[in-house]
């Protein structure tokens, strides 16, 4: 990388500051898109903890988003709860339900590895989708649930920019917490598991437990994203928990660069804006996105975040072959 750790922190700080300062000058539509990207970024970063740092390719991350979103909608419509100061309680509940769902799913999923893990998380995600689609009395089935209004507590979240700032706040908090997590002893243990799990066991780590905890944490952040997603759209339907959402999250991480944390956020932004732009230009925009994904996986295994390292390696090779071998 060209940047030192300090340099990277500054870059992120400047970008967040720019996001905060520029918001009032942007059009309502751009604000909406950025808000979407920020929420999906939380989801993608939570998935990166699993995929990029622990080496667990989860294909069920939408389930936690869905649990958080449905909880928010059901509490708001049935119990009129979470539309005032109690919004903050719903945030906590959303995190808890995401984590609890992951805690249940993890019991089945964590024992598997590689493709089996992928398939089990896929199946568990489909269970949540089935529940959302079929449990008419609770979820409204295919129609979903309309949330009457966004919460207000002193501030009016109904205003797009205000809601955007709230989401930005949660995004920054999530980024900060996940950053500390990956730099912590626990985070390092996850990287060790990704690199060589058997060795970790011999070194005294209960690798199952570490993976399980990571899985539950990722679920919690997924639940948080779900609460925010529900209030952004004002409607929660099975569309939230379809497989495509899980796949999208996975591809955001792959596109941005797995194992980099901010890569997930970059991936989310690129996907949201590219999808929005392309869908106005060509009717077959999905193929373009698909092509971008395929090309990334083939030619940029490190994702967009891997580009600087690639350029540096290319330069070194230009400077003199074999030089990087010298110690």
């Amino acid at each position: 990388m060209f940047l030192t750790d300090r340099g990277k922190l500054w870059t992120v700080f400047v970008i967040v500051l720019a996001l905060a300062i520029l918001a009032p000058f942007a059009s309502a539509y751009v604000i909406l898109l950025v808000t979407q990207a920020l929420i999906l970024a939380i989801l993608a970063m939570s998935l990166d903890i699993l995929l990029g740092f622990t080496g667990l390719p989860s294909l069920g991350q939408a389930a936690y988003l869905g649990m958080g979103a449905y909880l928010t909608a059901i509490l708001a419509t049935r119990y009129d709860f979470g539309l005032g100061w109690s919004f903050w309680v719903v945030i906590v509940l959303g995190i808890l339900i995401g984590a609890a769902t992951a805690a249940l799913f993890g019991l089945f999923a964590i024992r598997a590895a590689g493709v089996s893990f992928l398939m089990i998380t896929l199946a568990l995600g489909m269970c949540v989708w089935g529940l959302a689609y079929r449990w008419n009395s609770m979820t409204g089935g295919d129609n979903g649930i309309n949330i009457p209004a966004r919460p207000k507590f002193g501030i009016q979240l109904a205003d797009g920019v205000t809601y955007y700032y709230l989401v930005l706040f949660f995004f920054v908090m999530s980024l900060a917490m996940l950053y500390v997590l990956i730099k912590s002893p626990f985070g390092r243990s996850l990287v060790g598991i990704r690199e060589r799990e058997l060795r970790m066991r011999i070194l005294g780590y209960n690798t199952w437990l570490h993976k399980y905890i990571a899985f539950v944490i990722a679920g919690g952040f997924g639940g948080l994203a779900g609460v925010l997603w529900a209030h952004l759209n004002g409607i929660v339907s099975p569309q939230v928990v379809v497989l495509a959402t899980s796949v999208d999250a996975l591809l955001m991480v792959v596109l941005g660069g797995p194992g980099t944390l901010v890569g997930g956020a970059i991936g989310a932004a690129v996907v949201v804006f590219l999808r929005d732009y392309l869908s106005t230009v060509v009717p077959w925009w999905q193929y373009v996105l698909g092509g971008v994904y395929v090309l990334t996986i083939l030619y940029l295994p490190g994702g967009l975040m891997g580009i600087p390292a690639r350029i540096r390696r290319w330069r070194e090779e230009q400077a003199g072959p074999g030089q990087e071998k010298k110690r």
Partner: protein
Amino acid sequence: MTQPIEQSGSSPVLELKGLSKSFGGLDAVQDVNLKVFPGDRRAIIGPNGAGKTTLFNLVTGVYPATSGQVLLFGRDITGWPSHRRTALGMARTFQVTSLFPKLTVLDNVLLAISGLRKMKFVMWRLLSSYRDLYDKAHLLLESVGYADRKHVEVRNLSHGEQRQIEIVLGLASDPKILLLDEPAAGLASGESREMAEFLKQLDPGLAILLIEHDMDVVFDVVDHITVLQFGKLVEEGTTAQIRHSPKVREIYLGTG
């Protein structure tokens, strides 16, 4: 912990009682009895497929034993998972180098040291704030001569160096017994001599159980040898006894 106690009086660090393992119809390890005392340097030799690595996997809990017992400091650990055995004082290395290739030497060692500490679950504090952990890692790296290369990614080290780091990771948990699975595997002769020297300068109180095909390393490092064939223990004795044992010659040179 470092006093080398002589055999007879002291209790064994590791004891195997009638240890067996079969995979379907194949009896990979049959009825092996073995005692390792503090400070012992013992090699397990035998032709390919004799069950040496399987025996290690039984002792370290990678495979469950079919029958028999593994005792560590007199405690029956037969059904224990690997990480609990490590916590009790057992460490091992692998025949195929099993490091964290994309991490630096220092990070490899830090992971190894954290393995037995409660702080491995801490997720709200930066790893770099644990001074004592870094101090211990630096001490360990200095003692084995890797202090100047601590920031090198392990995959960029030579094969011989990686084999040594493999052992350093084993040492990080302060084990009382170290199981080495072919530490000199794939090393050039100069490198294996270095490896032998490296092993000889380790703490004399540490018991070492060694699988090795390179006989120069074996005779240089250990004082007792156990011979396995077809999963059975066929001969045991001092290096001199084994060197002159007709049975062992037959296994290695004759029809076996």
